[in-house]
């Protein structure tokens, strides 16, 4: 599973030897995140975000299990039980704010993690499976977050559930029965709330399971690195512990600092005030928006305002509503095909001058989509979303394959060590005796 020069697990205490013979769990941990896992020596801070996502999931699991002890998944009292948590339960406000903002932070780190993968070509062979499992985790996260947002049974919860489950009614013929089946009624109600609570509790454990597969698949070829050049020998790697446990530890500190800052000083900044109004099936809020992390996809959904029809006949092939739904789902499903869309053999964007420009354009494009998704469905936002959604699809389906065939990449370093030492040359060697020794 690892490189031949990796340290072997050698238990010294008789008890540890005894355990290792019966159930080699400590050996497994040592080889996965201990001294037995060799990692490229040149990882930058963008490689912290996998561990940070794991930390965010842990925060969600711990706070979520506690919140479930105080929550009532009954449409009549769900809203009150959340208010009860906020006002009466000891430290309830802290745990609920941590859970609500924890979801936002989970998405922040996962989005950085995804864009890290996009820039450094982490999805390319031999790590396609790591990427595919990552997209599965992302889909599961979206489902979990959506259902979690319904649980407080506020106005946004209710109308979010109405709109999102309404997407399924766009499916021809079987759409309406599926819609009713998902809700357990004709509109979101008690049955809906209960099944969402059950699944919201289940899915994080499914996510944890897929994360184990994600890491397993990663550890077969080993971690990628900012140069995208494969590990060539022992000089290219360092053991995960203590080198990256320390580096990740620093990242965890920064993450917790920012998390505490939002949690204690702006806990409602990323929420919507309408969700502090109890759900009312008879009155729609003036402006329905999902949570911010869904905005780019919501913008793609709303970008389709015209039916797809045969010109001059008025025969509609696909109505606008179904087009929007298909586009929204394809915008994510597209990522499953990315390893085979981008055919450039060079992984890292650092050595791809043309790719780099379009990568930043995609980044801006997604931010623009996000902004439009949070804005009201009026001009100029609809037109901007249409242009931005068109670019999103064009980037993956047209731009990436073209770049791969016409781009002339910059020369790659001979090895990870060579890249590291070339960087070190710009500094006076005397200042860093360790590097000076390594250079010789």
């Amino acid at each position, binding site marked *: 599973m690892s490189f031949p020069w990796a340290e072997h697990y050698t238990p010294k205490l008789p008890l540890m030897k005894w355990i290792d013979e019966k159930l080699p769990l400590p050996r497994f941990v040592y080889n996965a995140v201990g001294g037995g896992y060799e990692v490229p020596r040149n990882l930058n801070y963008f490689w912290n975000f996998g561990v940070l996502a794991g930390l965010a999931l842990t925060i969600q699991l711990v706070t979520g299990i506690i919140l479930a002890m105080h929550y009532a998944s009954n449409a009549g009292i769900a809203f009150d039980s959340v208010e009860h948590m906020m006002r009466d339960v000891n430290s309830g406000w802290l745990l609920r704010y941590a859970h609500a903002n924890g979801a936002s932070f989970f998405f922040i780190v996962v989005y950085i993690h995804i864009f890290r993968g996009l820039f450094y070509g982490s999805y390319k062979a031999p790590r396609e499976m790591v990427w595919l499992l990552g997209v599965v985790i992302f889909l599961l996260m979206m489902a979990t977050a959506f259902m979690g947002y319904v649980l407080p049974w506020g106005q946004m919860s209710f109308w979010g559930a109405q709109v999102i489950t309404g*997407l399924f009614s766009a499916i021809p013929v079987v759409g309406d029965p599926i819609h009713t*089946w998902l809700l357990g*009624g*004709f509109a979101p109600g008690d*049955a809906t709330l209960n099944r969402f609570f059950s699944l919201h509790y289940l899915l994080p454990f499914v996510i944890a399971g897929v994360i184990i597969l994600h890491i397993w698949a990663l550890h077969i070829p080993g971690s990628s690195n900012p140069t995208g050049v494969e590990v060539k020998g022992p000089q290219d790697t360092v053991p995960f512990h203590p080198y990256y446990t320390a580096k990740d530890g620093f990242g965890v500190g920064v993450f917790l600092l920012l998390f505490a800052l939002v949690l204690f000083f702006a806990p409602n900044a990323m929420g919507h005030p309408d969700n502090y109004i109890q759900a009312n099936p008879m009155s729609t809020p003036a402006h329905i928006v999902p949570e911010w992390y869904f905005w780019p996809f919501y913008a793609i959904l709303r970008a389709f*305002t015209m039916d797809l029809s045969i010109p001059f006949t008025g025969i509609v092939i696909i109505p606008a*509503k179904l087009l*929007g739904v298909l586009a929204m789902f394809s915008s994510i499903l597209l990522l499953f095909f990315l390893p085979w869309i981008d055919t450039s053999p060079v992984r890292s964007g650092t050595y791809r001058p043309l790719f780099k420009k379009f990568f930043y354009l995609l980044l801006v494009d997604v931010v623009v989509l996000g902004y439009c998704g949070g804005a009201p*469905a009026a001009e100029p936002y609809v037109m901007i979303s249409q242009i931005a959604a068109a670019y999103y699809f064009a980037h993956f389906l047209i731009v990436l394959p073209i770049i791969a065939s016409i781009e002339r990449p910059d020369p790659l370093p001979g090895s990870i060590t060579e890249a590291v030492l070339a960087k070190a040359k710009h500094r006076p060697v005397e200042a860093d005796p360790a590097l000076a020794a390594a250079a010789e």
Partner: protein
Amino acid sequence: MATEVQGTDAAVHEGEGVRRRDFINIAAVSFAGVGGLAVLAPLINQMNPSADVLAQATSEVDLSAIAEGQAIKAVFRSQPLFVRHLTAKEIAEADAVDPSTLRDPQTLEQRTVDGKKQWLITMGVCTHLGCVPLGAGEGENRGEFGGYFCPCHGSAYDTAARIRKGPAPKNLQVPTYKYTSDTAILVG
């Protein structure tokens, strides 16, 4: 397995190379497969609306108190139901439109009961993504076609609650209902 030559008498006797073991294997797996599917049915079906939800699936509405030009919001299947008493002018406006120019071509007659053309009964659920359109309440924005207006994504419906502008694909749905007397309807 079946192609392996066992040379046993049993294989020869049963002919066509089908061994007793293969037959039992296929039969057992098929039986377990059908059984598994049968178990799946209740697991899926439990998600459909329960009996108590379906029991609330009809509503009675009294029309006698609704003045001409007025509309009310009733509740049907825990969703809003718009009941509107159209004025002669609104009926004329709806009839003036050529149905073939509409996105979802229907006439006012097709959307109301014979002889009760002034009573327009529709769901208060926008056919786009399920918001409640404005226009049933006093003083609410009725949109540029004088019917209903959905504030979520700007769908505008005319006085027959037909979609005229915006992203919604269909007219506001007319539920099945019947008149139980001259001034009362049973919806559902």
